[in-house]
């Protein structure tokens, strides 16, 4: 404990000569945000749960598929990726936490007094999280796909990556997870409160979809496809939905889903730049 400071070295100590030392840059802030996300345990726990749940549930669903007869509308790719129905929430939790933990811990005050340019900070944070979510999503979706197909191939109902639309659907799963994460990130930024934001994510992804079922069926045809979960999940199926109510095409649906995420993000960023921290 004993220490009497007499001087603070550095200013001239050799390393302060370079021109950009002390000047925040996007590259530096990206490094900073990556250090933040990799240096807390909740990140690892959440991502571990995400991988296990997605691959595990996908394997279970694929195994279930081997126990029945299937017509031409059976989608083996979508079946193996079925775990995404759960993991969309897990990535949502991480997306909320990445920003809401800054507020719940008080870290935001330190973050913004060391980097008062808020736009730069929030851009870097969003980018880092998007990359982490996408990479995790890719690993998870490919693992789910290959494990699922291995299980189903014994019953000759599996597909391969080179079959039509399959690669798009597997990549689409990773994109879908990333977009879920960004939607949650935007809501976390808007609400700044972990529990409130997670509840809203669940509400948007699950509850509103269920509620639509209580509307008159003539309305459902127009409304159902616009529901976030309905629009977003089209990207990871290989066979267009045939039934009623009608759904969007894969990329259109995904674009609609990204639109919701963008609304949350843009509103969040606008408020973030205005509000007292």
């Amino acid at each position, binding site marked *: 404990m004993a220490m009497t400071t007499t001087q603070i070295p550095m200013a001239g100590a050799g390393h302060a000569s370079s021109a950009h030392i002390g*000047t925040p840059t996007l590259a530096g802030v990206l490094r900073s945000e990556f250090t933040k996300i990799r240096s807390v345990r909740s990140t690892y726990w959440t991502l571990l749960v995400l991988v296990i749940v997605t691959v595990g549930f996908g394997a279970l669903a694929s195994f279930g598929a081997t126990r029945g007869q299937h017509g031409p509308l059976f989608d083996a790719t979508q079946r193996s990726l079925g775990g995404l129905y759960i993991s969309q929430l897990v990535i949502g939790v991480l997306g909320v936490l990445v920003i809401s933990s800054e507020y719940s811990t008080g870290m935001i005050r*330190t973050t913004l007094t*060391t980097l008062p340019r808020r736009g730069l900070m929030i851009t870097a944070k969003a980018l880092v999280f998007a990359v982490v979510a996408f990479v995790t999503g890719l690993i998870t979706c490919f693992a789910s796909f290959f494990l699922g197909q291995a299980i189903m191939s014994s019953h000759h109902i599996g597909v391969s990556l080179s079959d039509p639309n399959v690669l798009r659907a597997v990549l689409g799963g990773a994109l879908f997870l990333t977009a879920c994460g960004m939607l949650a990130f935007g809501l976390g930024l808007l609400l700044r409160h972990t529990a409130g934001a997670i509840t809203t994510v669940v509400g948007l992804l699950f509850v509103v979809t269920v509620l639509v079922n209580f509307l008159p069926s003539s309305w459902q045809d127009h409304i159902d496809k616009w529901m976030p979960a309905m629009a977003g999940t089209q990207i990871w199926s290989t066979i267009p939905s045939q039934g009623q109510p009608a759904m969007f095409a894969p990329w259109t649906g995904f674009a609609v889903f990204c639109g919701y995420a963008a609304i949350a993000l843009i509103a969040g960023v606008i408020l973030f730049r205005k509000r007292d921290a």
Partner: protein
Amino acid sequence: MIEAQGLTKRYGDTTAVDNLSFSVEPGKITGFLGPNGAGKTTTMRLILGLDRPTSGTVTVDGRPFSEAARPMRQVGALLDAKAMHGGRSAYNHLLCLAQSNNLPKARVSEVLGLVGLTDVARKRAKGFSLGMGQRLGIAAALLGDPQILMFDEPVNGLDPEGILWIRNLMKALAAEGRTVFVSSHLMSEMENTADHLLVIGRGKLIADCTVAEFIAANSQLTVRVRTPQQDLLAKLVATAGGTVRENGDGTIVIAGLDPAQVGDLAYENSVRLHELAPLHASLEQAFMELTASSVQFRAGVPGGQDANGPAAGAPAGGESAEGDQVLVGEVL
């Protein structure tokens, strides 16, 4: 150099900071003094751009801090020792801050050594004591080797050793020509460290002067006297140019005359004295008198509602001046 011009911050109906104009100059420690709730933290948040002023401006080296080109080189701030993610290690906490400003990685180990946290650098901040958390916060403030340092109540909750350490650190930083701006609700703390004082109460600037000026202007030597001949002595004192106030406990307090004068006056006029005691008004007392009407939360005033009259339980006349560490906000 920090400069505020007409700085005002309102939250709804509450005016936290009311038309503050001041400047904080380099090379000295400027104490920012006021009772709890006076607006010290809000002012610091406004300086740092965490909050936006309702009106007025505040600049750091001539421009708003939110536009600072090299923020950590310019200002190091410790607002709150807990403003960090407890799950992150001390090293990683400082590393992410250094990276955001493109400061060399080596600087992280340097400041950890400077505050004496090298041994616990890899431990998560969650398990740190208040003193260690405070040191980590100071390490963060020193990372960029800034010209301006701001500390909000840095000695709060620290043990005597920690208090001494922070005092010496601030003095050393100011001696190097840096601007040190430190808030406290403890007058005694400022007496020991500050060169210049900004005193605020209810968001308003009450005093802007040196510590010596503040003492001279605001403290007054008084004499407590117990005598069976109160009326006679009171008349004599008034003639001699002093003032008398009844204390309520059978004693009177005389101002304007020193103890020797009072004693001589009584002796020459055969007034019997049972007690004669000098009362030293400390800076603490001066501060309390000055801010008595501006303390925001008082006992007996439910909900902190405004009451401008003399506070119940507030140090009205400054009886005992002994208490060296009166916590203004907490006492009331």
